[in-house]
């Protein structure tokens, strides 16, 4: 069994190896336009972060706007998904009608959603939001629907005998039972959201990290594309593993450790 230090060491080592391979490959390529090395990219990132970009906007503006879009779209999708999933669990009518539509939405490729949203809503924030929600909400809905189906009916019946009404029922009986399903959907939905936001920004929105991807891609500027990709990935890794993983651990701390 490897010690904790050994595990961390191996992880760090593997990332370092990746960077080393990158550096070696970039040296082999000679042409800095094909594969810039890690140092060159670091320099580019530094420049991007400290000086105003090509249209006079700072990198932080783009990053901030992307983050804002991600969080708004994510919360909107989660809320809609939870609402719809619960409705499906409680009402047969909802269940039947949504079951006809959801598989279709789940199968539709993201790029088609983005294209259609952009053409329908123009180059506006609404378009981006719709595109994300069209993909993420069905996924969350299905997850919560499973949870709603698994809810303990006897608890609701008990609450009803005490004359509890819908809002109270939802808050105190349904939502707590759905919590594990909400959490499981949380992380994956977040992952989906930022990828769709990146795609939507590429095509249809002004400002944002995706917008910068496409800007530099059109100019065949490998350094800048790589720089922005790395900034994006690092940011998302920090969010995913720093923030979410920690939240998840705290939320599930009450679960007893599995027996040997």
């Amino acid at each position, binding site marked *: 069994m*490897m010690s904790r230090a050994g595990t961390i060491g191996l*992880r760090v080592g593997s990332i370092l190896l990746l960077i080393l391979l990158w550096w070696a490959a970039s040296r082999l390529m000679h042409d800095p336009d094909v594969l810039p090395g890690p140092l060159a990219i670091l320099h580019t990132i530094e420049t991007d972060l400290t000086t105003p970009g090509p249209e006079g906007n700072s990198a932080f503006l783009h990053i901030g706007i992307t983050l804002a879009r991600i969080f708004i779209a994510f919360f909107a999708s989660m809320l809609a998904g939870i609402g719809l999933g619960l409705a499906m669990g409680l009402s047969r009518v909802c269940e039947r009608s949504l079951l*006809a539509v959801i598989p279709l939405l789940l199968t539709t*490729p993201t*790029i*088609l959603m983005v294209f259609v949203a952009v053409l329908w809503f123009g180059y506006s924030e609404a378009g981006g939001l719709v595109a994300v929600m069209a993909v993420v909400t069905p996924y969350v809905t299905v997850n919560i629907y499973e949870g709603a189906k698994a809810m303990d009916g006897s608890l609701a019946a008990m609450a009803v005998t005490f004359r509890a009404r819908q809002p109270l029922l939802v808050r105190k009986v349904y939502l707590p039972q759905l919590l594990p399903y909400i959490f499981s959907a949380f992380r994956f939905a977040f992952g989906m959201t930022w*990828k769709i936001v990146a795609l939507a920004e590429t095509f249809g929105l002004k400002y944002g990290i995706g917008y910068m991807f496409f800007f530099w*891609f059109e100019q065949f500027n490998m350094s800048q594309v790589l720089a922005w*990709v790395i900034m994006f*990935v690092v940011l998302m890794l920090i969010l995913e593993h720093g923030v979410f993983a920690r939240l998840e651990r705290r939320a599930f701390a009450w679960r007893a450790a599995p027996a040997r």
Partner: protein
Amino acid sequence: MRISPTLERILPGAITFAIGLGVWQIVSLFFLPVYFPGPGALAERMIALYGDPASYVVIGETLARIFEGFAIAMLAGTAIGLSMGRNHAVEVFFDSWIMVLLTFPAVCWAFLSVLWFGLSEAAPILTIVLIVLPFVALNIWEGTKAVDKDLLDMGKVYGADRRLMLRKILVPQLMPYIFSSLRIALSLSWKIALVAEAFGVASGVGQKLIYWFQDTRVDMMLAWGASFMIVMVLIDVIGFRWWARRAFAWRRHFAT
């Protein structure tokens, strides 16, 4: 009035479906078909597509790329997932690579692949592999962790060598994971292929999508999208259902 049970089951779904179609048709009347096609207009365009032999060439090109990328991702991903399950050092080494790779949006790889390989076949295939492989590896790895250790011990006591253990104990337990990986990997692969084609090559369904997008023709975009979706759903349903029946025959013998 007595309704037969089968009818009772499908009637609500069918009614919802019919209502949905009706609403769609009504809404579409407010718009130009090129902007918001109604069911009839869309069906018309799709039939035209299916009727044109040139469409099948396009679809074939996309399918070829999907399957190449998918095959590489499945094979390499399964191998890596298995070795991660067997060896703790391998596990720790690769899981950070996987975490990083899983974070990359498809569009990033699509761009990078084009910048590296230009408008060639390699770009979409590489994009697919870079996204699907980590996912498959992760999934198979999870599967190895769920293997029944008691059965492995039994095999060890009776002196089974590595190959025998793999064939008779490990792989049968991994089949559900391999199976679900395959299905999800294929579903991911074709969606990624479309994104990659939109940026990276001069042919294929993805290229059609971006072409009609730039022409602001929602109707043609939806026609191509829907036509291709149907193809992929058919492959999924026919291919996997048939295979599932064969692979899990032993479960059907379960008496209770």
